[in-house]
């Protein structure tokens, strides 16, 4: 992401937040503002406090050890970002709440599902990093020496990688669903009129909330943002498939070609040596032969030399075919 794209994104977010605020969609607006604020804090930290030098702009953060965009990094960063933004929006929502000293009731709480989600994405990131570093240690030539492209996140060694595509799709869906839950939670915080409700709100997961509702407790308002467990299991399977595929060696046509070429080269060299040795033997011994048996042995040796020559020619043609195919 270059500088202009970053500015445009922030501008779109700011305008959207303003419009939504004016239309009284305060919860969505607060969430967008918190994302904007997080971008700003990140920018201050990176450019002003630590003065980090970019290679490819802010998108440096998504570039993996192989030198291309990394899906696991992207996922880990986005989830961490959204969860931080969620806490930031809770703080802003308390500020927006009409009650005096509402900020006093702020609690840094997460639903179990949120923690599991963050753990899943970070675990996936660390696993993929481990696999990649191990792969690079064994094959340093795999480091990409080209400008990373955003398409790297769905492109594998042999084109579009289904394990990446499905993980990306599930991640986008999960982000959308989780964001709606965050907006709902923010909306509830903004609307709280009784201070005692904050305690319940910050410490109720969805199961408790539904239980309260069942018991007819109408004063209970909302619950912490969550994702259904079945969806989290699905995310786990999706990440498992992605990591599992990384562990399986990739079928690479170029490597096969190189191996075959090397094999042919060794066989051709060995046959040429055999030919030369048998020719030398024939030259040194032919004059001594006088009998029918000797002549048969000479003929056999000549046949062996001819057969080796024929085989060399066949293998050379095979080698030529492989080299032409390579072009």
């Amino acid at each position, binding site marked *: 992401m270059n500088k202009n794209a970053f500015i445009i994104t922030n501008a779109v977010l700011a305008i959207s937040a303003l419009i939504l605020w004016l239309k009284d969609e305060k919860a969505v607006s607060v969430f967008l503002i918190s994302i904007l604020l997080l971008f700003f804090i990140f920018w201050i930290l990176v450019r002003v406090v630590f003065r980090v030098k970019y290679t490819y702009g802010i998108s440096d953060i998504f570039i993996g050890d192989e030198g291309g965009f990394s899906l696991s990094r992207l996922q880990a960063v986005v989830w961490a970002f959204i969860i931080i933004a969620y806490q930031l929006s809770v703080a802003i929502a308390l500020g927006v709440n009409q009650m005096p000293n509402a900020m006093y009731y702020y609690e840094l709480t997460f639903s179990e599902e949120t923690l599991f989600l963050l753990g899943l994405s970070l675990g996936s990131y660390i696993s993929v990093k481990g696999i990649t570093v191990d792969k690079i240690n064994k094959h340093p030539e795999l480091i990409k020496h080209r400008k990373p492209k955003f398409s790297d996140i769905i492109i594998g060694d042999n084109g579009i990688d289904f394990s990446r595509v499905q993980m990306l799709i599930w991640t986008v869906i999960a982000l959308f669903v989780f964001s709606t839950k965050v907006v709902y939670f923010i909306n509830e915080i903004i609307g709280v009129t009784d201070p005692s409700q904050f305690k319940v709100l910050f410490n109720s997961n969805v199961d408790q909330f539904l239980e309260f509702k069942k018991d007819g407790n109408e004063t209970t308002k909302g619950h912490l943002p969550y994702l259904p467990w079945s969806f989290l299991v699905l995310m786990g399977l999706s990440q498992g498939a992605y990591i599992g595929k990384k562990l399986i060696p990739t079928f690479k046509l170029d490597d096969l070609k190189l191996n075959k070429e090397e094999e042919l080269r060794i066989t051709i060299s060995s046959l040429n040596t055999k030919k030369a040795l048998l020719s030398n033997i024939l030259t040194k011994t032919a004059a001594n032969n006088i009998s029918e048996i000797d002549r048969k042995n000479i003929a056999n040796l000549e046949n*062996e030399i001819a057969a080796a020559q024929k085989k060399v020619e066949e293998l050379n043609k095979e080698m030529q075919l492989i080299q032409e195919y390579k072009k």
Partner: protein
Amino acid sequence: MGKKTAVLVGLGDYYSERATGYSSLPFVYQNLSDLVDILTTYKWTVYTPIVDSAATEKNIFDSAIEKIGSLESDGWFLFYYTGHGALKTDSEMYLVNSAENFRYDLVLPINDFIFNYEYTKLTEFFRSKCPDGHMITIVDCCHAYGLITDFQTQQSFHTIIAASQKEEQAYYADNSFFFKALKQTLLQTNEFQQIKDSIEIILPRMYRFSNCVIHIADNFQNSQL
């Protein structure tokens, strides 16, 4: 000293080309070529070696008998074999030579291989044809000494240079360790006693131990190759 005649036999690619289940021995051709050069230097008459598919039991014996038959009573005969060797029983060793029905998926055509007792007949033939002669057998294969063990009594005219003990394998990497040592030795000396001493020193240095067997014929202890 009479005429010196050598018959060399080598099976290299044959084993893999015919799907015998035995591994190819690509160094065989190099060894044959080297030995031809060395023996020629020492004034031997070396006939065109019998190689791969031509190395049948019949062809090997026919060739050897023909060459021994052409010798005078004090003639010298050298037989060299490089290829695979195997044991059938504790007392029966055979050279895995070429045979028409030799395939890995069939019962081994064992009757078409050269056994130790058949080789004994060849040495007896030499003894009768060349009573004052010297026979030299160089066997470069596994269980090599098994080709000769039944024939201890005739050590007076028969020199044996075997790459391995009857019960043991001969070891090789890019070439057989035994032949490397033999070649290194023959390039420096052709005196039998020195050949024996030298191989027994060089071979353990190349490999972890030496399991070759060298018996110089009693009548030729101080002779040269």
